[in-house]
Every structure is written in C-alpha cells, then in structure tokens.
C-alpha cells in the first residue's frame, strides 16, 4: 500500500492574510525607497566608514545565505536519500531556500555603491577568476537556477529529475556557503578575518541554523493553517540539530584557540574577548543563548520532546548564529590595521583608532525590508503553489 503526502495551496482569503500581506508589502516598499535614496544621495546615509565598509547589511547577507543553504540541504535529503519523512519538507524547504537566497542577493545588491552596474559582473572580459566575489556571482546564480528547477521538479512529482537536481544543488549549496566564507577568510588585509577554518564553520553553522529555521517555519505555518504534524519528524530533526550545535561550538573554539596562540593574531582576539560588545556577543550570544541553552533544552528529557521547547531551542540557536556572523564580519574591521607595528599612529583618516559602527535608519529599513520581502514572497507562494502537505502525517491510500 503506497503511502504519500498530498500537497495543496492554502486558501489565503482571510482578512488576517491580507493584513499580513499589506504590512509586509509596506516594509518591502520601505526597503526599495531606502535603497533608492541611499543610491542617489550616497552612502553617507549609512553608518559605514572607510574602516568599516562592510556592515549590517553584509551580516544579514551572510546569515541569509546560511539559512538558504541549510534549508535546501534538508529539503534535498528526502530526494537524495529517499527519506520518506522528509518529504514534508521537500517543497517548502526548497522554496524557502530559494527565497532566502533571493533575499541575500537583494540585500547584497542594494548594499553596493553602484547597484546599477551590477551586470558588469557578468561581462566575460570583466570576470576576475582570482576574486572570490566574482566567482560567487556565478555560484549564486547557478544555485538559484538549480534551486528553481529542483522546485519545479518537485511540484511536478518528477522524482528522478528532482533527485539529480537535488544532488547538483546540494553541491552548489555547499559551494555557495564555502564561497561566502572564503570572501572573509582570504582577506589578507584584516588580521581577524584571515583563517582557513571560516568556510567550514560557515557551512556547519549554515546547516544548523537552516535546520532551526526550517523547523520554525514549518511548525508555524502548520499551526497557522491548522494542519496536523507528525512529532516523529521533528524529533529526528532535533537529533540532527543537537549534533550540529556541538559541531559549531567545537569549530569556533578551535578557531579562537588557534588565533590566541599566535602573537600575530592575539591583538584581534584580545579585542574580541577583552570586554565590550563582542565579548557579550560571543559568550552570551553564541555560546550561551545559541549553544548551551539549546543543547540543554534539546537533551533534557523533561523538555526535549515538547514542541514548544524544541522551537525555542531552534530560535535561540538561529539568534546565536546571527551573533556568530556578527563576530565574523564586524570586529575584523573595527580593529585598526597595523600599518606600522610598534609605533603609535594617528591621522585625520583615523589610522590607529578602533572604529565604531552603528547601523543607521537607512540600513535598518533595508534590513527589515529584506526580511519582510522573504516573508512576503513566502506567504504569497503558499497561496500560489501547492507547497504544503494536506496532512502532516502519511495518508493511507
């Protein structure tokens, strides 16, 4: 007796639905307006400076790329390893992955100084094979293309095609994330960035945060559309998540221990761990909220089987990964570059000063707007494409 999931669109005719669409649409409009003003008026409207040229928007970009790669790999597990339980995720996961990637590209594009010229990236004579960003432009676009084809195959129930595309796109998803990690790890000019472990840590954190966000999205969608859920499935995901959280913490420990050992990098480490915002982000955000608390919640027999706690743990972990992204992107730029080691240096260009950065209104609007963009496309997609299973459990035919 064949058992399978049936997928369907949601109705989406309630006032609540329209209100959500309206509010999210307004936020997206805010993003467009802010980006336009920023482009025409110039980037002084952001909080960035010459020392901190990559800031808030890049943190969101990196986080989104991670979520995308993570949820895609989860979705493809069903197709590749023929895991029947994961079939629930196969469509939603793929769709969410595409959306997160689109969101990441949207924020990347509007964060550029000249978004009008972005097509120059693809002119054959301009491609710079030594530049990770240039290669990433191609990896990102091929990943999205592959993802869309994969989703199409899933929607049409073309199992073989979906499996093949799933494998290709999974490889690309790993590539996308290692590539994003490489952006930072090869930046030779900034001491705190320069570490070969970043790409790996990026992939692992992507998987863990992607699993987390997939659970949250799936559960909330099911709850709000009044569908039943199979707890067994979430318990499996919970096991994966626990392992991945351990792995993230392990990798971060290794990275910072290595850096602490070498005098060349010690200054950067002391800056991160010497008190202040990043110390809080690391110990409180990544290790505490994002690591230990979720692990306790996920391992403790009293809480680990309760949906509420699993979701809390996932949300906390996604927050922890956000902190990790911040620790990767920001402190490396705040620290002054040792142009003349051994000298005390100062100039009108702020040499030798620890810079500060606070996102400006324009940046907040962009960040919130892009998050809203992803959410908006998600709920519109639920109404237009049959993404959700009718029942969270197998249906006997």
């Amino acid at each position, binding site marked *: 007796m064949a058992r399978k999931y049936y997928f369907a669109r949601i109705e989406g005719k309630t006032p609540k639905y329209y209100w959500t669409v309206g509010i999210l649409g307004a936020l997206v409009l805010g993003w467009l307006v802010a980006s336009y003003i920023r482009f025409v008026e110039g980037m002084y409207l952001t909080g960035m400076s010459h020392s901190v040229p990559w800031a808030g928007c890049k943190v969101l970009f990196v986080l989104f790329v991670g979520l995308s790669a993570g949820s895609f790999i989860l979705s493809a597990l069903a197709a590749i390893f023929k895991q029947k339980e994961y079939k629930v995720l196969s469509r939603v996961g793929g769709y969410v992955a595409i959306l997160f990637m689109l969101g990441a590209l949207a924020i990347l594009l509007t964060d550029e100084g000249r978004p009008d*010229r972005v097509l120059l990236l693809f002119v*054959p004579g301009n491609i*710079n*094979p030594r530049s*990770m960003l240039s290669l990433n432009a*191609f*990896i990102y676009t091929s990943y999205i293309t592959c993802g869309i084809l994969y989703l199409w195959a899933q929607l049409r129930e073309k199992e073989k095609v979906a499996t093949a595309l799933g494998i290709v796109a999974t490889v690309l998803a790993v590539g996308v994330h290692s590539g994003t990690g490489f952006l930072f790890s090869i*930046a030779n000019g900034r001491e705190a960035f320069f570490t070969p472990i970043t790409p790996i840590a990026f992939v692992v954190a992507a998987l863990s945060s992607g699993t987390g966000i997939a659970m949250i999205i799936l559960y909330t969608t099911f709850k709000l559309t009044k569908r039943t859920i199979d707890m067994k499935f979430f318990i499996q995901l919970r096991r994966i998540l626990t392992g991945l959280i351990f792995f993230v913490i392990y990798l971060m420990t290794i990275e910072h221990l290595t850096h602490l050992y070498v005098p060349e990098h010690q200054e950067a480490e002391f800056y991160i761990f010497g008190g202040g915002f990043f110390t809080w982000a690391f110990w409180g955000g990544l290790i505490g909220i994002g690591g230990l608390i979720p692990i306790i919640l996920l391992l403790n027999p009293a809480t680990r089987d309760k949906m509420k706690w699993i979701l809390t743990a996932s949300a906390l972990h996604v927050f922890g990964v956000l902190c990790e992204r911040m620790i990767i992107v920001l402190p490396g730029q705040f620290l002054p570059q040792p142009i*003349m080691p051994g000298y005390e240096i100062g100039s009108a260009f702020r040499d030798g000063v620890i810079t500060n950065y606070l996102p400006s209104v324009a940046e907040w609007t962009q960040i919130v707007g892009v998050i809203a963009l992803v959410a908006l496309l998600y709920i519109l997609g639920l109404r237009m494409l049959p993404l959700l299973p009718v029942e969270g459990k197998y249906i006997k035919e």
Partner: protein
Amino acid sequence: MGMDRRTFLKLGGALALGSLITPGSQLLLASQENKTGNESKTRWAMVVDLDKCSGCNKECEEICRDENNVPHYGNERYDAYWLRVADVKQHLPGVETRERHIPLMCQHCDNPPCVHVCPTKASFVRDDGITLIDEHRCIGCRYCVIACPYRARSLIFRKSDKWTNEEVPKMMIGVVTKCSFCAHRVDKGQDPACVEKCPYNGLIFGNMNDPNSEVAKIIATKNTKILRPEKHLGPKVFYKGL
C-alpha cells in the same frame, strides 16, 4: 544610469550565458594574469624622505585634494583621502620619544590584494606598475577596501561638486578611489603633484627599473624601508629614514 539600450542587451545576453556556463575555464586562465612584469621597462616608484618631512601643515594632503578633486566634506567618518600624513611615535626605552610624520598613500603593490579581489577588474595594474581604478567599471562593492592592508582606499560616500582641476574628471559617487600616482601627469612626463609641490622636497618620484634614476640610486643604498614587509606585496613606495 549611464547605460544605453545596446549595452543593456549585451549585458543581459552575457548574464544569461554567464549564469549557465560557470566559468571554470576562466579559473584555469587565472594564474598569472595580474602579475606586473618586472621585465617591463618602466616601474614607477616613490621615495619618501622622512628626515625632510616636517609635517608642515600637511600641505600635501591639500595639494593632492586640489589636483585630483578629492572631496572633503569635513566629516571624519566619510572624508576621502588619497594621501594623508600620519603622526607616529615610537616609545623605546632610553630614547627620547619624538613625533614624526609619515605620508601614507597607495603603495602601488606589485602583488596587490585589491586587484586580486576586485570582481569586475575595475582595479588593475598598468604595465608600468601603477595600480589604478577604472571608475567606469567599479560597482562599489568595497571588497578592495577590506583587502588593502594599507588602508589606501576610500569610497566616495557623497556627491561632490569639488572640481578644482578640470583636466581631471570629477569624482563619481558610490565608487572607490585611491592615489593614482597622478597617472594623468605621469603620462605627460610630469611628476605627481605632491612630489612637485612639497615645500621641503621630501618626495622623489622616478622609474626604479632605470639604474640612473634618483629613485633607483636611493633604493640601491638600502637605506629605505617598505611598510608591512611581512605581507610580501612588493609595495613601490619606499620610506627613507624610518
């Protein structure tokens, strides 16, 4: 903006093609393309004589701004600098601490990380060793600002109407700029503006591949130092008396 229909169509086609064929083949060509030839005849270099630099009123900063239309908004956060004079002090036991002044600009590296990371080849090295930015092509991604170990690059954060030298174009908004060794003057056979106008003649400019040039002679005495030698970038600005 600044893109007509034809370019747009061409770019669109390139985009469509490009996203299909991930340029693995390009990767193979990667190898040595950006290396500047030491064998080429000219390699422009600069020697900064720190004994002569008195840190006057930091006049070279102003000279550079006027020559190249570098905007100055009076806001420390986003003022652009092609050349800045830094005040440095070294605290050594038993030696009286003395404040010194050191002009810092793009070091025109032989192996420049900024060029390696640029996704559009907007940053490039000319055959004569000058690292330049093609402002028509820069997309303002600021990766090069991250990658440059000397903090030589600044972004044009704001529209600027400064146009003190009409021979040189005005600064374009949203792109990255940096010292060009006054390439427009060098091409005419002149020295860069700061070299010509430094009141103490503390800067010397010339072709370091020509053994008779003043620059080559000073470098040959081995009294000069480069900044951040541990990075192996081969900068072409040499500091004498550091």
